[in-house]
């Protein structure tokens, strides 16, 4: 890919969600740049990821840890394993900078997570900051805002 089209960007966001639903986590990890962050704020319109609490603010090491933990023999909260399911609205393309190869998308989605007899449904929006690197789109930053980020949840075990 030299310059991604709008469709390429949209496909990327859909494919990422499908990887998570399919449990293809190693492939998913490869979508990210090494210095990228995955952020889930705790507060509505939160600006500061570092000096107040977030639900998640994870770098490459922490994301990898999460994936390895899923696979672990002694990961008790993953016996049996959680499954997830994404339903995405068509992403908006908020920003395209072809010169720099930088793109921003905004996607509303519903996320379902299930384990044993429990199922939770979350509504969220994702903001992807993408960069074209050696002909491939990579995530440099992903922000997921839960509609009810300030509600009291039980375990939310997978990536949104």
């Amino acid at each position, binding site marked *: 890919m030299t310059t991604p089209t709008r469709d390429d960007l949209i496909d990327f966001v859909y494919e990422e969600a499908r990887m998570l639903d399919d449990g293809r986590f190693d492939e998913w990890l490869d979508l990210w740049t090494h210095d990228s962050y995955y952020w889930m704020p705790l507060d509505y319109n939160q600006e500061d990821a570092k000096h107040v*609490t*977030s639900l998640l603010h994870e770098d490459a*090491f922490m994301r990898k840890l999460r994936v*390895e933990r899923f696979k672990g023999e*002694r990961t*008790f*909260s993953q016996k049996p394993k959680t499954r997830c399911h994404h339903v995405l609205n068509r992403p908006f393309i908020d920003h395209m900078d072809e010169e720099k190869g930088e793109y921003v998308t905004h996607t509303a989605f519903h996320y379902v997570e299930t384990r044993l007899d429990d199922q939770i449904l979350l509504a969220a929006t994702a903001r992807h900051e993408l960069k074209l690197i050696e002909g491939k789109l990579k995530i440099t930053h992903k922000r997921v805002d839960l509609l009810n980020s300030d509600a009291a949840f*039980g375990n*939310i075990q997978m990536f949104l």
Partner: protein
Amino acid sequence: MSRYANNPQAIRNLIRPTEVHRDVYIDQEVFELEMKYLFANTWVFVGHESQTPNKGDYFTTEIGTQPVIMVRHSDNEIYVLHNRCPHKGTKIAIDRTGNTGKFFRCPYHAWSFKTNGCLLAIPLRKGYKDTGLEESESVHGMAPVGAVKNYRGFIFARLNKDGPDFESFFGESLSSFDNMVDRSPEGRLEVAGPPLRYMHRCNWKMLVENQTDTCHPMVAHESSAGTAIDLWEKMDKPEGTQKPMAMEVIAPFMSPYEFFENMGIRTWPNGHGHTGVHHSIHSDYSAIPGYFEQMVEAYGEERAKAILGENRHNTVYFPNIMIKGPIQQLRLFTPIAADKTLVESYIYRLVGAPDMLLERTAMYNRMINAPTSMVGHDDLEMYERAQEGLHSDGLEWVNVQRLYQEGENFDEITVENGTTERQMRNQFHAWEKYMTLTMEGDAQ
């Protein structure tokens, strides 16, 4: 069928020196009695004064299952009022936090109240002329709780008017609060953002017990902490690379039993106690540039060293909070039902200290205590399995016998092997005491 109401002996029978009956965790009647007696007779944490910095600022929360409002009145004092309109019961405030100005106004019929609760006005007051309103309880306005104490910025309340005074209830255990606050060069903390909120389908006491359970981290958290250590070791990195902050936070959860045995547990009367007497999982964090110098300037070198040398891990204040001094955190376990507990994890800024300290505090909170945290997941899994397992008729008693010594005296302060379950026994001793303190009748 009421088995426990007005039957202090039946309550006492639930606690044996080394065992606790399962009804303490799963029986709804016991739960309701806890709300009526235990949470009314003890000093319960409400909030931090920095959550209501200005006059008229309020914050809504619960003491046990009682809805209350913490509010800063025009005299700058903090009041804790029952969140209930004296007219027909409507909750006055439902926002978690806000500013009400000079008075509260009930949204139903517009009775209004000063921020200390006193009735200010009733619309169409003449309708009450000659009805004897002066004699009704409603005329007093929003009822304040029995007693309130601001301890170095932390607000505690006792629902009952009479009962143990604050100092004798907490005694020397307040040293953990002192240490946490003294870690600020200005001796002041400020809440940093909203708390994490995490719903647990288990009894609130399982959480409180877990705060001094030092035999579970290397087992339950092997999946996250153990995996983190493996990953870090296998990573390609130049010799002598500094561990990232996240590794410093998570790795000590895998410390061996010996580490926890040697850290020690101190128990205080009335159910309070702490892990980490000699060292803790927080001991080996890297120094934050400039912080020690600020502390020396504020306190002098000797005192600064003494403050920072305390590495208390978890301090439990009975009944339902835990604080972590070295990481400036407070966790509140609010009971909702016998099998349902809301956990809120607050963090505080050390006023005057470098931001990097707060960064570590926030990181700790989200990594360990969030509903999205890998570490919290396995704890919750264990509590919920316990809550379900206790319904098995295979055995009615829960064992808390580790390092038990005959004739334990919980009025004495002790320091013991860090894997003792004495602190849990201490809590149940206090539980029994405050459950039955004002309970009527000794019917056998």
